């Protein structure tokens, strides 16, 4: 039984068929890549997986639970967390608070005890701070914990977004172009970080990426999307040498 089972997924926007009969099966602990030319529908797939769009047809099953068409909030609680192509941090909150919002559902003290500062508030806030600092340390962000998120340099903002997603304690982590806008050094560092997340948190990761160095460096399996359809899937090295895939990327 795979952790994520997507069968025959499709969505239409009016007359436009953005994604059609999309299948993907991801095993627990796998590092899976979703690639394809611009406009192929990769982010649309992510948006369906996280409930931002409701798929027109098909099913999404996460760890035995059917999450097709559920609300984003529900899907996150079921165990899917994501990052965004254009970074979406809580810009006016501190780095620490960004992660603490991610911990929101795991530390459910009531609003009243928060206002009255009851013992449950003190105890859980303390645990939250420790947990958040632990996460920030993994991403080497612990020294910047008091900074406003918007004041972090670009590469660190990407890392903070991943840390925030991990704070929700997901089963599956979706990364939408994590290396976008990074220089080769930062990309190399990011590859190490992604591997580290997989090993340390025993995480299953699905990522969209254009940087082939990153894709071939860390992804174990790939699915290639072109014009909303699956063009190829399989082991990374096989897929990247597939003439169809090369054609889709480079043209005839």
């Amino acid at each position, binding site marked *: 039984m795979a952790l994520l089972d997507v069968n025959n997924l499709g969505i239409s926007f009016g007359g436009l068929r953005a994604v059609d009969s999309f299948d993907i099966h991801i095993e627990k602990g796998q590092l899976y890549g979703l690639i394809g030319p611009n406009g192929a529908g990769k982010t649309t797939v992510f948006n369906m997986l996280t409930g931002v769009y409701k798929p027109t047809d098909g099913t999404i099953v996460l760890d035995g639970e059917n999450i097709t068409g559920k*609300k984003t909030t529900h899907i996150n609680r079921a165990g899917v967390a994501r990052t965004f192509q254009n970074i979406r941090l809580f810009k006016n*909150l501190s780095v620490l608070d960004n992660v603490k919002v991610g911990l929101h559902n795991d530390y459910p003290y009531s609003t009243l005890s928060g206002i009255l500062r009851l013992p449950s508030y003190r105890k859980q806030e303390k645990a939250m701070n420790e947990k958040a600092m632990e996460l920030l340390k993994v991403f080497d962000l612990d020294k910047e914990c008091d900074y406003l998120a918007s004041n972090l340099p670009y590469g660190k903002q990407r890392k903070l977004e991943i840390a925030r997603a991990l704070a929700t304690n997901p089963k599956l982590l979706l990364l939408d172009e994590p290396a976008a806008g990074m220089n080769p050094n930062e990309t190399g560092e990011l590859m190490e970080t992604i591997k580290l997340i997989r090993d340390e948190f025993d995480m299953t990761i699905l990522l969209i990426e254009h940087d082939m160095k990153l894709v071939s460096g860390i992804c174990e399996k790939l699915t290639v999307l072109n014009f909303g359809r699956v063009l190829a899937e399989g082991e990374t090295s096989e897929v990247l040498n597939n003439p169809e895939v090369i054609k889709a990327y480079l043209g005839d």
Partner: protein
Amino acid sequence: MSKQFKNNLITYGIIIVFFAIMQTLASTGNLSSLFKGLLVPICVYAIMAVSLNLTVGILGELSLGHAGFMCVGAFASAFFSMCLKDSGMNSVLRFILAILLAAAVAAIFGVLIGIPVLRLRGDYLAIVTLAFGEIIKNLVNVMYIGRDSKGFHISLKDTAALGLETDGQVIIKGPQGITGTPNDSSFIAGTIILLIAVFIITNFVNSRSGRAVMSIRDNRIASESIGINISKYKIMAFALSASIAGAAGALYAHNLNTLNALPKNFGYNMSIMILVYVVLGGIGSIRGSIIAATILTALPELLRGFSDYRMIIYSVVLIALMLISNNPKAKTFLEQHDLRTILRRAEKEDK
């Protein structure tokens, strides 16, 4: 954590010091009766500004009818106090219950408005609250409620339509409002409610619920993606804001002999006035709201001679502020001459 705690302590400190100074001046007879009469309104508007700041600054939604919630709280509490006026209840206890009732009724209205409106995206809340404020004011103006041995009578026509027995008592008399509300409000009561309002809001903001609310303000989509229940937290923050406005209304009502709903006290202009306090004091800054509300409530009365020009001065100040805050040169000037920056520079030079 400690920085934020220190920040809160400064706010509490400012309120208490202001209270102590005013109280000393009043007891030594150095305060004009005019200014003495302003002390409770200052508290009322400071509480209103703090409460609106929760909606505007923390939740990031615009409310243009905050005086409507104050109106609801004022009438609910005044009605309650009138009913219990002759029951021989301790006046402090009655006042506390009246404030709690005002907060609860205003919160209910906040939830009722929030449930449909806060699910929408965009500026709908501004439009609906604007209408709410006007509707409540007009509704109160046509409402007649009386009481006799048979219980309560309600009419939207006139006093005669209530059909009261001869010993019956009319409590709400339409446009004439409520007369004879016990004068339970005092400067000390106002200060205590203000302190409690600040306590509730700052603690709310620094709890998990407050963080959730701010995350929605900063980025709704990201907030949903990490499992935050958007509608719940938006409605919660808005209802909390409304209930504090209701408590301010109770304080206001118990400071007057006659309470009636006029455009001046509960109308659109008042809502905008409170928004002005929030904007001038700095959106999101609780302390700023209190200071702006205090100064802007006190100034027109202190400068009575200029009161004809008050609105002109306000508009000039507002336009100037907007121009300055959007001018990059002015911004860098302010940053360079900020007290903190100057201190930091002095420190560096010392080294």
